Each structure stands twice: as C-alpha cells, then as structure tokens.
C-alpha cells in the first residue's frame, strides 16, 4: 500500500509538468488551430528566465541586507518570470506566426520548430554547455507518513499547478476575454466580424500559454535542479500528446490528460521493467486515441486548420 501511495505522489508531481505545458499547447490549438511546436522550448526558456530572476533577486536581497523568507522570493520569481516569458510568447507570435497567417499551414508548424531550435542553440551560445543548477529558494523538508515520503517542494508544485489550472479555467469561463477565446474556438471566421480583433486574441493566447510554461519551468527547476538547453524537447512532445488526448477546446481535458500521462508513465514503471516504460505507456495512449479519436472532452470538429 505504501508502495502504491508513494507512486501516486510521484505521479502527481510528474503529471503536474505535463499538465501545465499541455495547457499552453491546448489553448493555441483550440483557439487558433495551430500546433505551436515552440512551446516546449518556451518552457525551457522560462526555466532559464526563472533561474536568472531568482539569482538576481537573491543578489538584490543580499545587497540590501534584507532577510526575506524563501517562499516569498519563490513566488516573486514565479510571477516576474511568468511576465517576462509571456512577452517572449507574444514575440514568437508576432515574429514567427503572424507573417505566416495566410501561408500554408505546414509552414507555420515548421516555423515553430525552427524558433524552438533558435531558442535552444541561442541558449547554448549564450550560456555554454555547462549545466546550471537552479538555486534553492526554499529548503527541502522531507515528511513521511508511514513509509510514504514527500517533500514541501512536491506539495508546493502540485498546489501551484492546480491553482494555475483553476485560475485559467475561471478566466476562460468568466471573463470577457475568455468568452472571446471560446467563441473563436467555436467559430473562427465570424468572431472578428463581431469586433474582436484577432491581433489581440492571438498574442493574448500565446502570452497566457507561455506564462504557464514559465511557471512549469520554475517548478521543474525546483524538482529537477539541473537545467539543460534541450530539456524542453521531449517534455514538450509528451505534453503535446496530453493536449491532444484531452481534446480540443477543453482546458480541463488537457490538464486531466497531463496528469493521466504522468500516472501512466509512473505506474508502467511500477509494474513492468523500466526499460519498457515509454513503449508500454505510449501504446496505451495509442489505444485510447483509437477508441476516442477526439480525446476525452473534445467535440467532433472540422479539421480545417486556421489562424
């Protein structure tokens, strides 16, 4: 039982990252009908921005001689990094996707991949090949219930991820901007005719997605404190799978599918030899998609790509 519970905790943490990244994919995909393949690398850049902000804040606090609690610095780091990374998201939309709105859709997807590569190698050129360690803003405290172990960081990660998801859900459901976004995902061509500018909604979508990716990046840096310019690739691809699995137009679906992916991966390792983890995990997902081709919560929709 303890063994099982321990893996539930492992899966909750691991699933949080998939869920947070999948949200960004899902938003762009649902609203703009675009596969934003830069997203994994925006996640990576967000983690590095977080590293920079955290280092700068620590230096500032030390210079001023204040003694602020670590969690305050952490929250400040997350908020500042989310803001900076959202600007990066807007820039990617402006430079990468907007000029290609009327171009063939394959070009937009390729552009995304290329911007991703630019971000990866730009980082490599700027910071070199050495791995950077994410600063410890809060001390790790390990708790145990019976023989189930968890840390304050794990709780923080899962709670922050859930808060962000609920926040996004509220924004999409309750705010006027959210309403415009939902409208656009239902009927793309008609919404601009109602006076909602696509040049506002598209950057906003990218900004929110990127901010969530940045939050994911910092939480990831806390859990796995060795940063690497290529860390976003595999995670990005797998989160993309989660976004599709969740279903188009469903924020909740993407989040749930992210957690599901985490659970499938962890529990496959629990039952089978770890060498077969991805083989078995992704065969299961292939099977799910065979029976539910629109994902869990997606409605049948036209496959015409747009933006």
């Amino acid at each position: 039982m303890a063994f099982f519970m321990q893996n539930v905790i492992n899966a909750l943490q691991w699933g949080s990252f998939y869920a947070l990244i999948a949200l960004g994919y899902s938003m762009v995909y649902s609203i703009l009908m675009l596969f934003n393949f830069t997203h994994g690398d925006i996640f990576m850049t967000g983690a590095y921005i977080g590293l920079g902000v955290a280092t700068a804040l620590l230096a500032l606090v030390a210079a001023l001689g204040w003694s602020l609690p670590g969690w305050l610095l952490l929250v400040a780091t997350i908020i500042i990094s989310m803001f900076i990374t959202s600007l990066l998201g807007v820039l990617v939309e402006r430079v990468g996707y907007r000029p290609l709105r009327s171009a063939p859709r394959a070009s937009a997807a390729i552009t995304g991949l290329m911007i991703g590569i630019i971000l990866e190698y730009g980082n490599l050129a700027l910071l070199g090949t050495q791995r950077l360690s994410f600063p410890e803003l809060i001390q790790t405290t390990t708790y145990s219930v019976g023989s189930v172990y968890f840390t304050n960081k794990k709780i923080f990660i899962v709670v922050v991820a859930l808060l962000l998801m609920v926040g996004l859900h509220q924004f999409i459901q309750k705010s006027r901007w959210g309403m415009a976004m939902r409208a656009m995902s239902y009927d793309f061509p008609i919404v601009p005719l109602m006076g909602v500018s696509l040049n506002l909604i598209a950057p906003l979508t990218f900004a929110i997605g990127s901010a969530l990716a940045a939050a994911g990046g910092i939480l990831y840096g806390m859990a796995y404190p060795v940063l690497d310019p290529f860390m976003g690739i595999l995670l990005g691809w797998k989160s993309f799978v989660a976004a599709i699995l969740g279903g188009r137009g469903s924020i909740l679906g993407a989040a749930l599918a992210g957690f599901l992916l985490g659970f499938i991966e962890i529990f496959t390792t629990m039952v089978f030899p770890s060498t077969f983890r991805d083989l078995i995990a992704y065969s299961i997902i292939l099977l799910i998609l065979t029976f539910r081709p629109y994902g869990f919560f997606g409605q049948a929709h036209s496959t015409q790509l747009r933006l």
Partner: protein
Amino acid sequence: MRKWTTALVVVLAVVLAAGLIGCGEKRQATIKIGINAPITGDIPKVGEGTKYAAQMWLEGIQAAGGLQVGDKKYPVELVIEDNEAKAESAVKANTKMITEDGVLAIIGPQASKQAIPAGGVANDYQTLMISPWSTNPDTTKNRPYVFRGCFLDPFQGPVVAKFIKGEFGFSKAAVLYDVASDYPKGLAEFFKKAWEEINGPGSVVAYESFTTKDTDFSAQLTKIKDSGAEFLFTPQYYNEVALIVKQAHELGFTQPIVGSDSWGSAETVKLCGPDCYGLFFSTHYAAAGAQGATKEFIDRYQKKYGYVPDDVAALTWDSIRLVAQAIEKTGGLTGDLKKDRQAVRDQMAKIKDFAGITGNMTFTEEGDPIKCAVIVRISDKGEFEFYKQVCP
C-alpha cells in the same frame, strides 16, 4: 675577401663535423622516448598534463646522471610531438618519431580517438607504445606492441562489487543506469555479473534503467527502495548523478549510493551539493588524501607547476616509469634499434606488480594492466578524498 671566405668555410666545416660526430655518438648512446600528446586542439589541458609529467620525470633522470641499463648509464631525450587532438596528426606524429627520430618507445596518445589509429602504426613498426589514458578495448586489442596505463570498464564493475562487499558486507544490490548510453550500460552489466558471482544469483534485487534526458527517476527509485536493496550502484555522468541522489534522498532512501569514474568531475559536487557528501565512487586516482608515492608526486607537481595534477598526469607518470623499467630490465642495449625495441616490448609484457602511483600493475596478454582502482569518498567539504585501494 677570399681569406675571409676560406676562414668561414673552415670554421663551418669544423662546426659541422663536430656536430656530426656529436650526433653520431648520441645516436648510439642516447635513449629517445617519444611523447605523442594533444598540446593544442580541443583538449590542451590533457596535453599539458602529459608534457609536464614527462618533463618532471626527465628532470629526475637527468639529476641521476641518466638511465642505468645494464652496466651503462644512458642520457635520455624526450621527443614531444603535438597531435592536435586529431587522429590523423597522431598517426603522423607516431610515424615521424619511429622512422625519423628513432625513438625506443612512445608514450601516448591519451584519448582513444587518437590512440586507436596511432596504436596501429606503432604495432606495424614493432615499436612499444603505451597509452596512459585510453579506456577503449580496441586500442590494445590484437596489438602485441601496444599497452595502456589505465584499467578498462570490465575491471571496474568487479572492483566496485568487491569494495562494497568488503566495506559494508551487503548482499542485496540495486542498479540504476541509462540503457541508451554505452558506458553506463556496459558498466551496469559488468557490475551485475560480478555482484552475482560474489553473492549468488538474484542478489541484484533491482536492475532499473532509464533513457538519456530523463530527469524523473521517482518510479525507479521507489521500486529500488521497495526491493529492500542495501545500496544503489549508478554509473552515471555528473548531471544525472545530482538528480538521482537528490530524488533518492527525497524518497527516503538512506542507504549508500555508489558510482564509477564518470562521477569524477568537479561538476558532480557543484550540481549535487551536500546530498552527495559521504558517497563513494571508483576511479583511477585521487589527489586529496593521497599517501606515499602518490602524495610525493602530487606535491612535486604542484610545487613545480602550481596546480594539483589530474588523472592524465598521474597515469602518464606511471606509464613513462613503466617504459623506463622495461628499458632497464633489458639488461643492456645493443644499439640496433629494431632489436632494442623488441627487447623493450618483451620486458614490458613481463612486468609484474609494478608499483605505480595509480595502483600496482601487471599486464595481461592483451597489454591491459590488471591494477587496483582507487575508491574515492566525497568528503564533507565536497572534495574527492582518497578512501582506499581495491584490487580486482
């Protein structure tokens, strides 16, 4: 005018003649040892360590008045060639040293990339070559004239298994390794085999893997913890070591975690921090806490060049001393380079229990040393501290 010219010609002739005579004498009486090192290129620090260690050795020989072979003392000369860390340059350097400079034996190249092709040349010309640092089996494979100064991975697995058995008396092992990378995968297999030989089948209670770029090992580590393993062996590189050790501790795994020579980077402690303090890994040599001859070497090197020598310098030191011992053992040089080279090679193959600063060595038929590994403990200050020597 004419007088001057005549005088000049005469002087030149005398100088040339003297030079020629000098050279002629030297050719018979001087022992030349070739050094094939990456002085420039990608890994200049490796070349520097090689050169410095060799020059330090030469100084000692010169102070003693030369190398004693049989009843004669020979002056020694080093021929240092730069291989630019390139395979083709290393081949050229070896060819030049053997055919033009007439070296008796060659030390280097260091990296397998250069040592493998250069070893072919040395073998073809029937000249002894010893690579201090190359760990690839191909360097010495089927090449009777090529040797190496370091242990191979098939040795390291049993060494770690033996150390843990002797030190802790454990009988249940767990292994976590990257299934997509040659070095960890090979070493994990060698370790598993060795451990099961000591403790019987089934004694590796968890044999878990992941793939390169994975960062979350919680599922594997939970399984390892649940398996009742008494320690974890993980032959990974520094970035993964940091993640594995931290996650293991967060999951309440308090047993020892042990590694291999891939841990031996300053980055390990930088990324891992206090979580790695007190852990053990096996390697070629440890600077901090070294004793005896090893300490003497380190002190001398540090005094002369201003920094602590790395494993390349130490292995080069041992290799050049091995060559010197092989030359001494011939009992006398004939002056015929071909015969002398053969004699030196034969003596090298016969060397037993050579006391090196990186461990005692005896060569196998393949030219690989059976030597002891050093177990390093990461101290509470994050230094790599010599803990003990373990022999296979």
